[in-house]
């Protein structure tokens, strides 16, 4: 069974690139355009992992992470944040909210896959 990964990003181009990379590596993908959209979908859809941007309209990545951890269906899934900030404040905020790991933009497809393999164990 291919693992199902959700990518939440308001940037269509990043979503496209992430989804393509994941599919090429044998994962199934569902996309969400912002935090609210992601949280709505995750309420009924069980996934194996969430990749989320931090800066999004409607609900940002931090809010999304908190929401997932407070939910039930996907409470314990690994969550990786995509961030442009290499500074530790945002990373720390994300970790405190319950993120599992992070990857700093820009990243190469191989790097993304390496991180995913790591957190999926």
């Amino acid at each position, binding site marked *: 069974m291919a693992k199902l990964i959700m990518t939440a990003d308001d940037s269509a181009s990043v979503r496209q690139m992430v989804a393509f990379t994941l599919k090429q590596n044998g994962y199934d993908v569902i996309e969400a355009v912002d935090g609210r959209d992601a949280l709505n979908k995750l309420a009924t859809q069980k996934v194996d992992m969430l990749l989320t941007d931090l800066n999004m309209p409607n609900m940002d990545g931090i809010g999304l992470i908190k929401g997932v951890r407070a939910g039930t269906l996907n409470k314990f899934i690994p969550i990786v944040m995509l961030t*442009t900030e290499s500074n530790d404040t945002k990373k720390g905020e994300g*970790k405190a909210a319950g993120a599992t790991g992070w990857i700093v933009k*820009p990243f190469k497809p191989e790097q993304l896959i390496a991180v995913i393999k790591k957190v999926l164990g």
Partner: protein
Amino acid sequence: MMEEAVATYREEAGELLAELETSLLELEETPDDNDLINRVFRAMHTIKGSGAMFGFDEIASFTHEVETVFDMVRNGKMTVTKRLLDLTLKSRDHISYLLNAPVGEDVDRSAGDEIIAGLRQLLPQAELPQKGSSEVPAIHLPEISQDELPNECTWRIRFRPAPNIIMCGTNPISLINELRGLGTAQVVAQFDEIPPLDELVPESCHIYWDIILTTSRGEDAIRDVFIFVEDDCDIKIELIDSSGLIDREEGYKKLGDILVERGDLSPVEMKKVLLLQKRFGELLVEKGIVSPEKVQSALVEQQHVKSVRKERNEAPQQEAAASIRVPAEKLDQLINLVGEMVTVQAHLSQVSLAGGDSVFISISEEVERLTNELRDTALNIRMLPIGSTFSKFKRLVRDLSGELGKEIEMETFGAETELDKTVIEKLNDPLVHIIRNSIDHGIEMPDVRRSAGKSGIGKVYLGAEHSGDSVLITIRDDGAGLDRDAIRAKAVERGLLQANAEVSDREIYSMIFAPGFSTAAKVTSVSGRGVGMDVVKRGIEGLRGSIGVDSVRGSGTTITLKIPLTLAIIDSLLVKIGKDHFVLPLASVEECVELTREDIKNSHGRNLANVRGAIVPYIPLRQHFGITEQLPEIEQIVIADIHGTKVGFVVDHVVGEHQTVIKSLGKMYRDVKGVSGATILGDGTVALILDMGTLLQTIELMELSTKGS
């Protein structure tokens, strides 16, 4: 693909710039509107982040400057002024210019530099960016450091995860497994911090681990494993042994010294206990000074380093260790004798149990133990690394690719995986067929590959690995993949599939194993005649193995062969129908469930059982074999996994696990479907070994023909 994403990015950035313009103009009216400020910031942020992803470095670094300013506005460190809005609008225009500049041409930076200078003037003095900070932040990633240390070192790692580690989506076990991947590791879990049951939070992690790891990778490689958790978890990494050490002593530190070094024991306590002159570890535990797990962990370290050092010192002598060449027939004879022995031993056990003499039983049990060891050792002697055949295939790939005008490289892994000699020999033909197919149909011509964005050089991977009592052999190519629709069309044309049947990709791909099946438009000298894959399937099934295909259009095909380790003796399930015994290979058996008369009545003659909510079809073997003896009140269904489908076989009784020495049935019975051999039971009776795969096929065909008529 990348071009598509770049086009999407251009479009998306264009929309964001339009939105940015509107927001900026609105902001001029209401300069305090936080919502608008956030919107501006977010637009800049996305343009920057995605720009960097798709190679628009100029845009990324320029936008970073503007974003920095708006971050300050957002945090209340600056206010929105007319000058700021002017500059931001100019920035918008500049980004738009950069976005549409032809790729690869030099862009005019002067306008951008001017805007940046203007923006910097607006910044409060204290916030002036330091030199060099205008660059887009560098990538920060858990890349595995490649600097191999020349020497193998042994590390002592204590990994104490934060209690909430599982709630944050990290599985500590997978981190430990990652460590195991670095070298030889021994792991001891520590339980002394698990609270009493009523205080225990099931979602929290109360366990911590001591890991002794011998690896040639440096400390950085170990730290990289913990990259995402190092801030929250307590991780101690200490070097305890290195092959570079000059003293090549074999021994290692005393238990007490290890515990003191780790901080699990104080030197004063150590001296006190040492005075008592007993085994130190036992005393510590007895006195409750150190937990048993901690002592065990220290003992593990002691043993580990001792054995690493011993191995190191013995290594030069080992090279001289002798091996003897023995003719293969002698080994086959040994295996045969061991087979006979296993049979006789089973008889002995039965007789001794029936006799009830305790001395006799204990002797018989001893014989059983020794026979099992003898069997394993004997089978092990016949095991050979599969790598010897791999090199043959490299040659095949080289020759064939030259013939076809393709450039193909072959990579192998797991060459050291061991398999029974006879199995390796029988694998040769199927592997040749599969690899030929990959080269001929799978890998495209170099120019086709290049135009699809792939490297001109195709790759074929051949690998072997252990999985339970089987070996998995994987043949993967990065070629065009199987054409699902063409296979489907062909299958429909050949009458193998209904035109409107809903089947999974896997089922469609498995059609390639049908006899004479080929979608190739032209027959080449290498393959395409449609003979081959069905031969492969028969060959593998002859080895009691199974075969699976997976394929992604455009990126390649993977064929996986699952082969049992040996052909001579297998673990199996002994069952009884009427007075007859039958044997089912245990590797495919999943579970046994009861089938009562009532169940049969409820299924209305459809031969379907409900196993915990899943519907499993079953085959009443009694009917199939025409056995008419008295039916028991409760029958048993043995549920087996056959090529991914669950099927039940109904029998009267399940006797239990059985060591089965496979005997062939001889030429007379070679064409009997559904029976792969026979075995002799402890009491001398013969039991047939059922081949569940072909049994299922035969019955399906019979059903179809009865329905058809």
